[in-house]
């Protein structure tokens, strides 16, 4: 009984959170944001089937996301013109998934013959090729403008029309939960395990009688299927798909989400997609430097904690599994380190914002407000202040990091010394 609760608990909890969220954040902006995060979670998890679980780094996974999106838009328009059989919007994402699967099987056959750097190169090649084709085949992709549709094609069960955003939110939330569950269960199947084995050592997998190439192909196809579902959900949510959705930019974004979130654990991509999309949609209006912060964040994760945010959490799992009071001595060193880090980051942000303000010749704004304080980037005072904060913060980071690390070391040693319980 206890085990059952332990296993089902997170899923039931997740479902309750998904149902309750619109009651807490009910504004239109929040609804669209949450819908978009939901479908990006599906996309990120699909991507991590490749990167985290299969060891395949792709620079072109948006191809399956985007092509499914284009197909969905066309299909909805065709339903409207009564040229194709009617499919309720509730089930349209499945169609998108099949489109993703189709292209995944097709392109995957070619690209999964090799892993590692070759695979990355081929994925980039296909990504660039499809992006270039969207600008050539105007009747299908409509160039830079993209194509649009109206998702209200008829009344479905219980009077759902998918006109209001709240109905689309629940559609996406439902598919998100379903896909997450499906992808989680996939990791527990023999296929999921052997996919991990191919990632770790393809040669040994060959020796026990599997074709590592076929495993990669299967993983690639399944991942494209889920990416297709996400693409169709995007098409339904935004009612527009353009070449940005298949481009390398979108592929890069999902890579950032998954890697910053953490490729090593199942929840990593969920954390990454939620955090990055939330930051992106709130910060792009406030700062010009969002992409710079994103890139710096990504580089910092690779250099200093390659496990990503989820890796930082799982680092402490062995400690609180033994006893949660073992975490108490960590609090003060962590708080010190975190305060120093925040100070240095804030200082750097101030400097970057002022530099951007000075260089952007097209800027129409006349004053720069950083953290609610009006700063004049053409006088010396803010430069001195922010440089001071950044440098002092940097020194503090170097000073507090060793004690934070040694606190963790002590805690983990204590946890190992104690019996479980």
């Amino acid at each position: 009984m206890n085990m059952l609760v332990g296993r089902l608990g997170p899923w039931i909890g997740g479902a309750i959170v998904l149902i309750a969220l619109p009651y807490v954040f009910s504004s239109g902006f929040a609804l669209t944001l949450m819908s978009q995060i939901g479908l990006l979670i599906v996309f990120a998890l699909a991507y991590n089937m490749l990167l985290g679980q299969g060891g395949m780094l792709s620079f072109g996974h948006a191809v399956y996301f985007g092509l499914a999106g284009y197909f969905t838009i066309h299909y909805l328009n065709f339903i409207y013109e009564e040229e194709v059989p009617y499919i309720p919007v509730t089930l349209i994402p499945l169609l998108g998934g099949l489109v993703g699967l189709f292209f995944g099987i097709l392109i995957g056959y070619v690209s999964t013959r090799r892993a590692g750097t070759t695979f990355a190169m081929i994925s980039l090649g296909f990504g660039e090729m499809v992006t270039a084709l969207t600008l050539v085949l105007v009747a299908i992709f409509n160039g830079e403008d993209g194509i649009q549709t109206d998702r209200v094609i008829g009344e479905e069960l219980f009077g759902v029309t998918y006109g209001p955003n709240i109905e689309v939110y629940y559609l996406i939330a439902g598919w998100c939960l379903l896909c997450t569950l499906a992808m989680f269960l996939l990791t527990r199947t023999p296929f999921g395990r052997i996919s991990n084995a191919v990632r770790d050592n393809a040669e040994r997998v060959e020796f026990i009688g599997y074709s590592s190439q076929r495993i990669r192909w299967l993983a690639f196809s399944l991942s494209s299927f889920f990416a297709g579902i996400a693409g169709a959900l995007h098409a339904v949510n935004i009612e527009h798909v353009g070449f940005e959705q298949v481009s390398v930019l979108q592929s890069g974004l999902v890579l950032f989400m998954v890697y910053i979130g953490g490729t090593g654990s199942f929840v990593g991509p969920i954390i990454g997609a939620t955090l990055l999309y939330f930051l992106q949609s709130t910060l792009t209006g406030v700062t010009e430097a969002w992409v710079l912060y994103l890139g710096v964040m990504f580089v910092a994760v690779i250099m200093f904690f390659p496990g990503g945010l989820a890796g930082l959490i799982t680092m402490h799992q062995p400690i609180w599994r033994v006893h949660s009071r073992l975490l108490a001595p960590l609090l003060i060193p962590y708080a010190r380190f975190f305060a120093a880090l925040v100070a240095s980051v804030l200082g750097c942000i101030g400097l970057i914002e002022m530099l951007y303000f000075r260089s952007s010749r097209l800027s129409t704004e006349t004053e720069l407000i950083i953290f609610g304080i009006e700063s004049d980037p053409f006088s010396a005072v803010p430069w001195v202040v922010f440089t001071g904060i950044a440098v002092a913060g940097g020194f503090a980071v170097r000073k507090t990091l060793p004690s934070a690390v040694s606190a963790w070391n002590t805690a983990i040693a204590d946890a190992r010394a104690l019996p479980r319980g």
Partner: protein
Amino acid sequence: MESFIFAMFNGVLYGMLLFLLASGLTLIFSMMGVLNFAHASFFMLGAYFAYQISEGLNFWAALIVAPVIVGLVGAGIERWGLRPVHRYGHVAELLFTFGVAYVIEELVQMIWGRVPVPYEIPDVMAGALFTWQGFDYSIYRVFMLVVSVAIFVALFALLTYTRIGLIIRAAVSDPIHVATLGHDIPRIFMWTFGFGCALAGVAGVVGGNVLGTEPAMAIQLGPIVFVVIVIGGLGSLGGALVAALLIGIVTRLAIFYDYGVGSLILALGLEIDTAGMLRDFTRITTAQVAPVLPYLMLVLMLIFKPRGLFGTRDV
């Protein structure tokens, strides 16, 4: 015929520019196993530095100083960025350079703005060298060709006839043995990385004023340089040269001779579908598919001959 020669000349020129980029990239790859995603970003830095220096001093100073600065920046990134990541494996290194490409593009926008900067051809070389059969051959384009050929020859001589070249070639084929002979491999890696970036910087100095110096220039050229070194065969300088010329000439000819699929269909005596969803397939012209051609060649090459034209090992 004259126009063919003109198109060929442009193709060779573009190809040599690609080679300048690809030579550094393939040198870095064959030695360190790192596919430097940010390579075209160093090309961009070269162009921007050259712009800044030629504003203050002149073009000739830029031609010397800008690549040196780019090389130092590259060596610094290798020393303090890439080297710590090395222990996480090649995929992490590739991801690191991917992140660096983003950061460099944004930093360039932060310093020089989002619009192109007016980096222009020096006045001395603005005119035409000679006019032949109605086509102007500008001095600057001939100069570009001379610079890139000179660098190719110098690079070849450096690698073949000098002691440094010997060590580099040895480190490419077997870094561990070279290390046991007492050479500091991390330092060789750092300077090779810096040197490769400096070559990209040279390409930026001489190409930036023709191709346009703007923040998007790295992302436009970057993937094509990958295509060049994969088609040529990773680690092969000669292969990179052949592949760069091939891609340069093919894409320029495709733009120059703008043949369409439609004319082919008509020539076969078939009818053209002008209304359906697939109508664009009959309207495709070679100029339109020119940007796709390198990637098509890449995919075909990786399927049929993954070692590339002159490669000695798999990617």
